[in-house]
């Protein structure tokens, strides 16, 4: 798509502005319907029905109507809170979540911005959300929010390390940080995906348990980054009554909410790109139709939606871990295991490549 736009408009700033717009449109629609999907899926898991009145049996207009309701609400800010920080916090979190979509590869012909540092950019941007959470927690002038903010910051910055280490395994195998290059390197069918060791001969079978471990570690760490159960301590609504978003009403609360769902798909997209082949079809070149650019978008979305479904499933099945247990899991289990993974993959690369 980039070449197409360049041929029409020319290689100037307007092309680069228009390129990420479809991704932003997608994420806005996704955030809208992900809320509905979570409510429906969680309802089915707990033997309920979920929204089924606002737009047919599946409640398709539910979120839009909820958004309209939230927009009407009065903007309340606590007395003696830091007004500027209080107002700015939702915007920062929202921006951080949405900026990550610039480097998600939806298809071989479309990616928002084809940075050759794509993965690095993504992990850096999601860390910006930490500042927003801390601002929200502090500026609410409320001890519960402060607790939520502190816990959230500790959690997110701790879990960035296993995230980076688990992704590092794939970076070593692929030799690049560009998101499109990850997807291109996994062509040739399902057994060339990085979760099965990446492209290569039979020797990659020894890598498979380590790659699966790395995928699981990445999944869990990104769950902790986006504050989903079992790591949703900042929002622990049975202890801290909604934690960081406690004092926000109306559209600001909606911004926190949408930012969370946008981040969910962003990390699902990154895991799909790194380990599950991105937009590659599992049939590879055997069925060329299934590998055409339009079908690639569908494959990518299918993988992303599946991972989002697993995240929703985990949220509604597992209890919450306590703050110190969360830190124990990160520092005593995930990080050592990631180091072992990196070590093994490095040895593999030296001896087999």
């Amino acid at each position, binding site marked *: 798509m980039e070449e197409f736009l360049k041929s029409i408009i020319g290689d100037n700033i307007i092309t680069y502005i228009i390129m990420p717009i479809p991704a932003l449109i997608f994420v806005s629609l996704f955030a809208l319907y992900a809320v509905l999907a979570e409510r429906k899926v*969680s309802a089915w898991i707990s*033997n309920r029905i979920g929204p089924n009145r606002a737009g047919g049996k599946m409640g398709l207009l539910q979120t839009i109507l909820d958004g309209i309701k939230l927009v009407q609400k009065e903007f309340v800010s606590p007395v003696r809170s830091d007004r500027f920080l209080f107002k700015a916090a939702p915007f920062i979190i929202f921006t951080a979540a949405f900026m990550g979509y610039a480097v998600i590869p939806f298809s071989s012909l479309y990616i928002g911005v084809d940075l050759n540092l794509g993965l690095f950019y993504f992990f850096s941007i999601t860390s910006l959300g930490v500042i927003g959470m801390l601002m929200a927690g502090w500026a609410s002038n409320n001890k519960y929010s402060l607790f939520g903010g502190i816990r959230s910051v500790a959690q997110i910055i701790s879990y960035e390390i296993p995230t980076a280490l688990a992704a590092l395994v794939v970076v070593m195998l692929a030799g690049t940080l560009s998101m499109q290059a990850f997807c291109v390197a996994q062509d040739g069918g399902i057994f060339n995906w990085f979760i099965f060791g990446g492209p290569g001969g039979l020797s990659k079978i020894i890598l498979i348990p380590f790659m699966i471990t790395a995928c699981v570690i990445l999944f869990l760490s990104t769950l902790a980054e986006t504050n989903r159960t079992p790591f949703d301590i900042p929002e622990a609504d049975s202890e801290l009554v909604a934690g960081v978003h406690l004092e926000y009403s109306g559209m600001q609360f909606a911004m926190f909410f949408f930012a969370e769902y946008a981040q969910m798909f962003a990390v699902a997209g990154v895991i799909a790109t790194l380990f599950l082949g991105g937009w590659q079809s599992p049939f590879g070149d055997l069925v060329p139709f299934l590998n055409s650019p339009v079908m690639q978008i569908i494959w990518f979305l299918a993988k992303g939606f599946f991972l989002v479904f697993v995240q929703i499933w985990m949220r509604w099945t597992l209890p*919450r871990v306590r703050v110190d247990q969360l830190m124990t899991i990160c520092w005593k289990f995930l990080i050592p295991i990631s180091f072992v993974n990196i070590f093994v993959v490095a040895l593999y690369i030296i001896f087999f490549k």
Partner: protein
Amino acid sequence: MAEIRTEEMLINMGPQHPSTHGVLRLKLALSGEIVDDVKPYIGYLHRCFEKHCEAMTYSQIIPYTDRMDYLNSINNEHAYALAVEKLCGIELPERVEYIRVIMAELQRIASHLVAIGTYGNDAGAFTPFLYCFIDREKVLELFEMVCGARLLYNYIWIGGLSHDITPDFIRKTKEFITYMRPRITQINGLLTYNKIFIERTINIGMLPVDVAINSGASGPTLRGSGYKYDLRKHDTYSIYNKVDFDVCVGTGEYGTIGDCWNRYIVRVDEMEQSLRIIEQLIDNIPEGDVQSAVPKRVKPPVGEVYVRTESPKGELAYYIISDGGIKPFRVKARSPSFCNVSLLEKISKGHMIADVVMILGSFDIVLGCIDR
């Protein structure tokens, strides 16, 4: 380098909070996340029951006893009715005794389901809460079949019952027993033996047996510390001496005896024992008339009586002083949750806020019972 000035932070888990099971205010003094002191403030649900009882006749008090521990109505009525019957010297027909015990055990299952479900909810597991409430619906349907009410029954009258049971009820109760057993296994698989839940609840809120006994703890709170004391066996009332069941104690299967997990597992095991009791009784209910011994007018002789029973929350007792008239001189209800909640201060020191929530949940308090 100068010492950083630190202060204790006072945080209020106020009357409205999703995890204090009712309107309970907890004032926590914290250093960081560690709790130094917990002070419970009660009284937000005080409705002056005991004073009201002095203005009503003995039969009129029964709906009031329902509303004290509203998740447990049958056991409240049962204890009160036993107290008045002992004072008046009324002999009950066998049929009434059988049905009362069946209802009490069904109520025990319903109450424990709420305790288990809300405990999972406090821990962050939202699904077991709904599963437990589905099962509880079945129990409430059984109650509705008999007396028309789902939560507050006014069913156990002095000297008998308000309505008789039907063969339909007996059939449906047997269906419920076969339905419930696999559901207990399912809850165990989903919540009880879940690694995250175990990690949240073991070695927290250690309650030594001597502290428990000295503070007046009773029920699963006491039995979770390994002390086998159940009023249905040790100070038997009604026909509990004719049925065969085990007293469940904290087994120490996970964690140490006396922590939150063991108090929780006592409740899960007690549900199984209640099913056993119902099974033994449901086929053998003798014939009779449930209203035959209900006196036209309850006028006990002068005297006082103290009757204690085992409610799902602990030892529920009534102390009634009668001056010979149709209204009691004084009715005092000894509430199990009131004594249990006083333990919170002693055993929460040194834990984190998240643990205080779990300890409170493991006591299974109901504010209606505490405040009356």
